């Protein structure tokens, strides 16, 4: 039973207030993209046993989407942040690197632990 901090309304929300929305920071491929690009966009999700960035909606709350950085192996939450950014805030990246030595943004191999 996770608790995530909603960065919009400031509530530490119970999992039952939240809706999980899968991997964060996807780049949309629309008309004009190749079949491979489109397939990758729709179906190839990061699935690390470790640090993962994902989207959540505070659905039974303020209704806002936000992003969370979470370990899929220990369920530790490193932080939550706005959904309206293209990558996690530097501060959060630093925090994760400190807690998971060897981890770097978009280097999935280092995320296992």
């Amino acid at each position, binding site marked *: *039973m*996770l*608790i995530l901090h909603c960065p919009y309304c400031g509530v530490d929300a*119970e999992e039952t207030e939240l*809706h999980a*929305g899968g991997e964060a920071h996807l780049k*949309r*491929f*629309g*008309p*004009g*993209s190749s*079949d491979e690009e*489109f397939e990758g966009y*729709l179906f190839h999700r990061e699935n690390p046993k470790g640090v993962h960035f994902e*989207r959540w*909606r505070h*659905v039974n709350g303020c*209704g*806002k*989407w936000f992003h969370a950085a979470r*370990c899929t192996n*220990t*369920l*530790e*939450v490193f932080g939550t942040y706005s*959904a*309206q950014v293209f990558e996690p805030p530097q501060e959060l990246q630093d925090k994760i690197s400190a*807690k998971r030595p060897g981890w770097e943004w978009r280097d999935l191999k280092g995320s296992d632990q």
Partner: protein
Amino acid sequence: MSTRLSTGGRLLNKDKQVRFAFNGKQFHGFEGDTLASALLANDQMLVGRSFKYHRPRGIVASGAEEPNALVGLGLGAKFEPNQRATTTELFDGLNCSSQNHWPSLEFDIGAVNNKLARFFPAGFYYKTFMAPRAAWKHVFEPIVRQSAGLGRVPKDRDADRYEHFYAFFDVAVIGGGVAGLQAALAAAEAGAKVLLMEQTAHWGGRAPVDGGTVEGEKVDDFIDATVAKLQAMENVTLRTRMMGAGVYDHGYLTGYERLTDHTPDQDGPRHRLWRIRASQIVTATGAIERPLSFAGNDIPGVMLAGAMRDYIVNYGVSSGDRVVVVTNNDDAYRTAFTLKRHGLEVPVILDARPEGGGKLAELAREQGFRVENGKAISKVKGGKRVTGVAICTQAGEGAVLEEITCDAVAMSGGWSPVVHLWSHCGGKLTWDEAQAHFRPDPNRPPLGAEGQGFVKVAGAANGEFDLGAILKDATEAGLSAVTAAGLKPKSKAEAPAGETLAEANPAAVWLMPQGAGPALRMKAFLDYQNDVKVSDVMLAAQEGYESVEHTKRYTTLGMATDQGKLSNINGLATLAHSLNVDIPQVGTTTFRPPYTPISMGAIAGEARAETFQPLRRTPMHDWHEEQNAFFEPVGHWRRPYCYPRQGESHAEAVSREINQTRAALGLLDASTLGKIIVKGPDAGRFLDMMYTNMMSTLKPGKCRYGLMCNENGFLIDDGVVARIDEDTFLCHTTTGGADRIHGHMEEWLQTEWWDWKVYTANVTEQYAQIAVVGPKAREVLEKLGGMEVSKDGLKFMEWADGELAGIPVRAYRISFSGELSYEIAVPASLGRALWDKLLEAGAEFNVMPYGTEALHVMRAEKGFIMIGDETDGTVIPQDLGLNWAISKKKEDFLGKRAQLRSHMADPNRWKLVGLETLDGAVLPDGAYVPASGNNANGQRNTQGRVTSTYHSPTLGKGIAMALVHNGPDRMGEVLEIPGTDGTIYKARICDPVFYDKDGEKQNV
């Protein structure tokens, strides 16, 4: 015999006698008894039969770890199987019966299994019962099932209620023994908000039985004083009869409070399940005594030494007059002292340790007990009751040195910390060689949301058994929990000084005697309930089931209702010994919640029957109910399917509703339709992405039917979009789609196009909506008066705000039935008023409300698709001939890229057509159209399927819609469609629009 003593019984109120029945026999006990102590007081040592061999089983423990004393408790709607006698408080009128025997507890036919036990070792069923093939299902399995199982099946709907409770604490302490009390006190005095729960009805745990002093006073006084202090503190919540059931991620904890199990006639919920969030959890859950593995250790009368002591001190009950004590540790000596103090005889204390023992052992020798070091039980004699023991050396193979008559055996194999709650969420254990047990490894706690440990352990649960050490450990646990919870301790408690006699280390004794041969091992039980013996675990190891999980599953060790509380450590020590490895190398099986079984009723809580799920009601819902509408669940709504009249079948009602609507006037409560306002300068641009159609070009005042696909290309919803003004649209969705589509819009707005200036609002419940349908629709509205609804004043696919009968409305001239039709939206609070006015004004036209089935049939007659019928998540708009609604001009919309993929652009996809049966029959729902031949997997080829099929009262025959390979090019072709009953239907491919192809009826 076991009997009531004249001394002891500190928990009893001997002034209050309580009557109860066991297997129909009337007994009596005292207030304060458990069912187990009361049974023992009545010499009912035999209480059940084991799972596999149906061996006689007696009470062996005094608490939650009891594997044997399970009864069916209560009668009728209050009957409950597998209730543990040791944790059941006695109440007047209690009625219970023993389990798993036929015809009676004393004489059980199933005990023949016991005679054949040699043929039924671990896993025997994997090796036999295989021939003939049908025999497993028809012969062997029914026998196995009947002889397995335990409790009787409850027959009636549960008469009790249950409830849930949410609570938030800084520190939750589980266990109300000395350690729990002290930890709670330390945390509370430091300023934390504290919950302390104790699974029994009494504070203090084992301490009052085991004795000792705190600051020079009796430990009982310390307990009373601490409870009093805690009760006086505002930041402390105390609960007895509440068990810590499970520890889950991020500090979620379930507490199982048994409110009225001990007073079943009292009003109110029976159980309350607490859902607790605690920053820190302290488990002060104590320890459980282990049995010793010797032959006959399961014969009724063989009990845990600590339990035997409990029964004397707490309940004034002796388990036997003459008790042999057998042990590998000092603690069991306390039982010998207690027995003697209460006038019972202890012919010998068998201490498996070759020499020594601590102060307790010294004391025993001083007091003149016969203490035999290095000795063991070779075997226990007796059947349904202990009659004696044969003594041997622990070091040998069991040669009998002496036989001693006795009627009970008190055994102690050492104590194992209760580490369950620590382990539920990933806390790891460490093997303590000196104490011969697993205890929590403080360096590897379960990790919480921030990667921090969130469980602390105190007292015996942490491997501390000395009263002084326990108090220190608990104080530390309480204080460190406060700090870990992020609070600054207001004060720092000092641990009070506790004192008990120091104990020497136990010896690791996993088999008694250590060289016991196969005949003895086959009688040395590890798991009493599931009949797993030392020989079974050894067999598993021999056959290669070497992982502890393999052994557990192969032998069923620890899988009974006690989940191995007594057997696990002995079992895995036996496995380690068989594999010739150290115990930590074997490891433990995973501890899973709950700690002891909790009622399903408590888990479900108050959600029953009508309150099972929330019910959504339209403003007209009560009217539908008054008319005895037949409802169907649609999401959390219940919509009228039809309004059957006296003596009318549903089909007849549906036909009547359709005929009258098409002939004159019908009304539909369409309030459940989704209504989403989309507003902002970029609203048009946004809807162009959401819908396959072009929405930005829609003129204010106009409506347009739109299709919505997901990014994967599939059709997910449809509905009419109305442009309210330059910046505002109102999007109708399907009933089931309202929340989903609103979420879908928000997801794209917030996570992809967050710079677009658009707001959405789901106003589904803010408006009631009524479809006024039929040739008389305009007349009835005009009769209500107040706004222009004429052919040209409000054209087809236009909307207008206005007033009807003085009620402010928004009228959409749209049609899902093919008739002249208006959908009138009003603020929800006025919905019923308008509905009533329409009924009143429509009376002269014989107005007829219609339900969802009439709606479905009328749309099918018109060839309109229905999301969920024509679509199933695998259908794209092109399949349904809806290309006209897919904009060619737009560069992009959700689903556009997906629909370009090879399989979606394939011209061979099945396409929508109508089907009419040659004889007017109705095609079966969901029928497939076979094609010739079989595929490579031997399945019949297919060329289409029926998506909707109805009897059309308008046309007087069966009509259907279907997806058919090359369907639109095959008009007039006759298909053969098999039903599942062998009937072959013949149907002709036709235009899916069956009624009023030119749309003249709606355009008047």
